[in-house]
């Protein structure tokens, strides 16, 4: 192939989106991990109604909420919930999606038809609607939320995995492995999976942002995680009645969600470029 055809595509700030996104996500993750040390107060117990609904000040950098709790500390602690919802539900989605997609793409046949049918079904029911139904059945809470979000948006990773497998399946090394006598499962996990991780990680990263937004949406609809422990979605949802009277109640959790999801989206984009075999950053 001539050189001209292999020329890398120019990408908008592929590198910077990786760093900016990674940075934002790193901030969110470190606040989640370091919450006990960087939070000023306990997010649940340090309520003092005498301090209720104070605007931001030196003492309460982000203000206080209706119960008089420090919003900054609640956001810091809330990172734990929001991020674990994002991460755990995406792990579920990825596990389901990858398992189904991998096997469907590899084995094909009736199993592929079944999985494709399921995937189309999942795509046809908007995941928010599906999650809503599951939340209604399980009741609000962290575990239900993780289940609801972890069971309902695997179709993307499934599709990606399947498409990747289909394109890899005819690759020489997969055929070589079969010819060498490798079993199907061994091929799937040692030959195929490591080579399709890149796009799956990207999907999972973007999906995490989606899950955090979905948590907020479900909280709004009254089916999120409700406290005592704070999550950004529930903080935002609780604060919405005070939008005209105490805007800082919704501004800060809103910004926390926005920047974290933005970070995840940027990170996903950056990873997409970074992990893309055609990308310049990895060539040569």
């Amino acid at each position, binding site marked *: 192939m001539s050189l001209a055809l292999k020329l890398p595509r120019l990408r908008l700030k592929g590198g910077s989106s990786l760093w900016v996104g990674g940075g934002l996500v790193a901030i969110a993750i470190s606040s989640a991990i370091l919450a006990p040390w960087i939070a000023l107060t306990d997010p649940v117990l340090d309520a003092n109604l005498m301090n209720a609904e104070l605007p931001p000040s030196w003492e309460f950098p982000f203000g206080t909420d209706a119960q*008089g709790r420090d919003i900054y500390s609640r956001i810091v602690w809330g990172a734990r919930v929001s991020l674990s919802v994002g991460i755990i539900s995406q792990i579920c989605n990825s596990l389901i999606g990858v398992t189904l997609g991998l096997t469907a793409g590899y084995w094909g046949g009736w199993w592929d038809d079944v999985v494709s049918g399921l995937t189309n079904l999942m795509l046809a029911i908007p995941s928010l609607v599906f999650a809503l139904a599951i939340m209604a059945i399980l009741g609000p809470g962290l575990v239900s939320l993780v289940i609801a979000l972890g069971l309902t948006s695997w179709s993307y990773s499934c599709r990606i995995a399947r498409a990747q497998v289909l394109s890899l399946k005819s690759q020489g090394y997969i055929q070589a492995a079969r010819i060498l006598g490798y079993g199907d499962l061994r091929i799937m996990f040692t030959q195929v999976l490591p080579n399709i991780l890149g796009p799956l990680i990207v999907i999972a990263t973007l999906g995490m942002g989606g899950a955090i937004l979905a948590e907020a949406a479900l909280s709004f609809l009254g089916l999120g995680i409700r406290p005592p422990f704070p999550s950004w979605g529930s903080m935002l949802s609780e604060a919405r009645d005070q939008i005209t009277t105490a805007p800082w109640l919704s501004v800060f959790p809103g910004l926390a969600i926005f920047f974290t999801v933005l970070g995840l989206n940027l990170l996903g984009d950056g990873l997409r470029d970074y992990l893309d075999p055609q990308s310049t950053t990895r060539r040569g």
Partner: protein
Amino acid sequence: MHSNENVHEGDGLMRKLAWLAIAAIAVIGAGTANAQQTPRKGGTLRMTAPYAASFGSLDPHVTPRAQDDIVGKALQRSLYNWDTAANKLSLELAKSVSVSADGLTYTYKLRDDAFFHNGRKMTADDVIFSFTRIMDGSKGYPGARYVRLIKGAVDVEKGTAKEISGLKKVDDYTLEMTITDRVDPGYYFFGGSTAILPKEEVAKGNYASNPVGLGPFKFKEHIPGSRVVMDRFDKFYKTGQPYLDKLEVLIMAEAAARDVAFRNKEIDTSILGPAQYVAYRADPQLSKGILEVAEMFTRSMHINLNSIKPFQDKRVRQAINYAIDSNLIISRLVKDKAYRATSWLPPSSAAFDKTMKPYPYDPEKAKKLLAEAGFPNGFEFEWTTSQNESWGLPIVEAVIPMLARVGIKAKPKLVEVTVLTEILMKGDHQALIGSSLTGPDSLATLRCYYSKTPRTACNYTGFNNAEFDKLLDAAAQEGDMAKRDEILKKANNLLYDEAPVWFFNYNKAVLAFQPWVHGLQPNPTEITHQYPENIWVDATSPAK
């Protein structure tokens, strides 16, 4: 979801009866202040329906919901109504009534000037038809529980009779009704679920989408999930009324959206939650349009005495009451949109001991009591709650740290409002915060702590106290009302001491209205239930 204040707290009848007793303490806001002015004819009123994102049905027999009755008051009428000015029941569709000596037969002289929107005059047949329809056992209409008061109604419900034997048409405008108990039927027949509907319109089969009633406004349009629009009915039986040309009821379940819309002058009335209550009161303009009414529901945390060991000890329960700074919560979190509860019965009850003071905030005492009870390091319990803004999660969240300070760890368990009662009836809770009707019949109210009352009836705490039982038995025997109240007072005080609940507050309902709105009624049964024929808007109203 229901983040509103005033989430419907009870079924229609009980809710309304509650108001008999406390009507006196209804705070009448600015709404009546300019009542002296001459009502202006014309204009449009835009009311809000804040309790759900849609109406259940415009067929009043089908729906038991407070939300639907907002429209129902404009479209349909029942035999009685609640006179908000006099705070008593009054006849609505009848001009007079006579009662037989045994107090069981009522003879109504019906109005001969009441027209349905289709132009036909109402007769006794319509009342009989409506009550008979409600007793259709295959439909399970919620109003059936009221109509069952009439003799023979149950047979219709069971399908063994076609007609209610206790209802007799004497002539077109005279109706004889025989009831089974010596009670005032007014309490039973003033709600929307016993409204009088025209047979021919119901027979068309699409009544809910084209409701025709006796109300001051006739149905124009219903956009499901959005609004109902009604026009003035010129043949309404109260002369000169209604004043308004048009009435719109807009569905607005989101408090934040309602707030923005009210400030944006897109709606004329809005129910306020605590957050807005403070803001509106503080605002020089908005504060002029606030209508407040006290409610009589006791908000409390039901402690399930049969769940965990600590709860079986009175001292622990008292400790909980001492440990919580209820006044602080009411002032800071509920923003004074409530009155502090002392014991189970409300202050307006005759059996309320006015000398009694609520539990003071005393964490030291709480700690001491806990230590005495054998829990010096506290204990842990699960606290079931809904998301209700006034008696749900926000309160629990505020209480958790207070309890924590005395060593009690409360873990909230969030459920939907719709399943609260089911949980209570099953006893699937250790503690549950809710709002309970506590009037007007003090005996009936206190019977919820009678040991023989099953949990499914209302003994949600599983309270079992021999002394209390004895008092209640005595009260039931006592014919003299004053003496009975004395006994009940003792019972209520005993409850205070036993503290099977955390006594929290009684609610205050608040309606905000635009300055051009006049004639709003401080309806103690439900502040959003306005008799719209009395409302008028002055020329400053921006609505077309």
